[in-house]
């Protein structure tokens, strides 16, 4: 077969960019937790890259993009398992939509989406997730939740795609999906000890901003790469992505200002991410005015939405709900208004296309949100009952870094307060009395307020 090298070059570059987003997310999240939990957060994200990369090539790619199983648009077959049949075109991409890049490049590009989606969930459950069970969760969730929804929406043979629902780069598949799952798992494991009374400020705001920059940068691959070529459509996706992100950044800090407070850098970073989320499904379907409105709306709405968790008493620690779930829904629905065939796709309500696109978008939102929420809840619950999904209270008090991973993130002062006790070991307990477990009882007695 003969492929277009320019398109291939751009999608290879985009794939690298999207891979870079997950460490970006790790720093975005990692900077927001307390210093005793930063490695725990980084670890969950990095290990997710490890797990999903393997699961994808050996199984879930085929489930998501394989020939439709039974023709109902529910799930793909095992035809491409282990990257077999890579000389065959990706099912459904025909005619004007025929791919100009090697199918393997498409596998790679889509892999990065499958990686970051479960990684997003770790924001909800920050500071209290057991490591082993988390690994199991990611594997099961990738198969039972990510693969089907990706098939429904992204594969031209999926039922939502065929229905006419539009999702250029993953508003439903990635953000609504991860958002719903994050809320479900947070519900299962319960809130952090001390939340919301104990102060839990970010320990490293520059890391949050570094992560946001890595995300913004990588997201150009995510969105503009979703055009699967280097062309006018990818240019539109690119400029829409940047414009919406900029508008959302400004929108969020404006809300802070209007509410009588100060504009914060955390707000700027959060706004940027909210804008990136909201424009993701829309970037290849709207023009730059549409992108500006979507971005601004995302910045404002998400800035307000993050306070909801306090009212709901649901400890969505780093606001996966307020940012990804809400932002994703916003973007998906606004395509119904701002979609215009001059860019790509069909016309939305404001461009004379009637309400049908909006309706299809709503169906896609409801279907993926409910499926994801219910399935994630069930999976989390089962793992919780069998392996336990939550760390012990004394581990939570001590912090994940030392308790789960036998490491401290930082040592700026004298490293001499430690003693060397051997090489090649595995973290055995000391011979002095370790009473963290007992301490925590007191901690609990005190009503979890310390």
């Amino acid at each position: 077969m003969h492929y277009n090298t320019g398109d291939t070059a751009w999608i290879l570059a985009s794939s690298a960019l999207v891979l870079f987003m997950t460490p970006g997310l790790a720093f975005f999240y990692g900077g927001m937790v307390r210093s005793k939990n930063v490695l725990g957060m980084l670890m969950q994200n990095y290990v997710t890259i490890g797990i999903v990369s393997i699961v994808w090539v050996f199984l879930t790619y085929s489930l998501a993009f394989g020939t439709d199983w039974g023709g109902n648009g529910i799930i793909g077959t095992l035809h491409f398992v282990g990257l077999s049949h890579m000389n065959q075109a990706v099912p459904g991409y025909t005619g004007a939509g025929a791919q100009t890049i090697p199918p393997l490049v498409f596998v790679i590009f889509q892999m990065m989406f499958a990686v970051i989606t479960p990684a997003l969930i770790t924001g909800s459950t920050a500071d209290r997730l057991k490591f082993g069970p988390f690994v199991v969760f990611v594997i099961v969730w990738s198969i039972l939740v990510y693969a089907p929804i990706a098939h429904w929406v992204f594969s031209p043979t999926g039922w939502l795609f065929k229905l006419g629902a539009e999702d250029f780069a993953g508003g439903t598949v990635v953000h609504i999906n991860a958002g719903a799952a994050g809320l479900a798992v947070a519900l299962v494991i319960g809130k952090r000890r001390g939340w919301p009374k104990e102060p839990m400020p970010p320990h490293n705001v520059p890391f949050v901003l570094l992560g946001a920059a890595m995300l913004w940068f990588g997201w150009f691959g995510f969105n503009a790469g979703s055009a699967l070529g280097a062309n006018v459509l990818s240019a539109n996706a690119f400029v829409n992505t940047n414009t919406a992100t900029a508008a959302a950044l400004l929108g969020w800090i404006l809300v802070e200002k209007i509410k009588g407070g100060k504009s914060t850098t955390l707000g700027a970073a959060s706004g940027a991410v909210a804008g990136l989320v909201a424009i993701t499904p829309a970037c290849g379907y709207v023009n730059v005015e549409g992108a500006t409105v979507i971005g601004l709306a995302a910045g404002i709405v998400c800035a307000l939405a993050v306070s909801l968790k306090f009212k709901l008493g649901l400890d969505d620690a780093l606001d996966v709900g307020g940012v990804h779930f809400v932002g994703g829904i916003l973007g998906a629905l606004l395509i119904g208004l701002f979609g215009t065939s001059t860019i790509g796709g069909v016309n939305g309500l404001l461009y004379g296309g009637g309400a049908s696109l909006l309706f299809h978008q709503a169906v896609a939102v409801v279907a993926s949100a409910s499926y994801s929420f219910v399935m994630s809840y069930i999976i989390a619950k089962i793992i919780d009952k069998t392996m336990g999904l939550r760390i012990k209270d004394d581990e939570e008090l001590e912090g994940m870094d030392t308790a789960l991973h036998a490491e401290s993130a930082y040592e700026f002062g004298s490293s001499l307060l430690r003693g060397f006790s051997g090489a090649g070991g595995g973290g055995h307990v000391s011979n002095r009395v370790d009473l963290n477990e007992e301490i925590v009882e007191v901690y609990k007695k005190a009503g979890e307020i310390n």
Partner: protein
Amino acid sequence: MKLITAIIKPFKLEDVRNALTKADIKGMTVSEVQGYGRQSGHTEVYRGAEYQTSFVPKLKIEVVVSDEAALDIIDEIVAAAKTDKIGDGKVWVVNVEELVRVRTNERGNDAL
């Protein structure tokens, strides 16, 4: 006057501060310290090299009080900082010969 020094578990700060505020103490000075005692630290492992940290993070509270108030304050602090578990810390008292409020140059109990 007396200088009361209390080594406490960090998560007990809020309780101790509340107790002191109730006891009409208006000021105090806090620092982050590392304690060595019965309570153990934790183990860290980096590429197989294993380190034992024998020190545990604690907060040190220093508060100067009048001679009369000292005994009560000690009891308040102890009560607030207690968890009944090893590592709860120590409180000790030292005699203060002079105290000055820098701003006003007030001396002694007036400086409190």
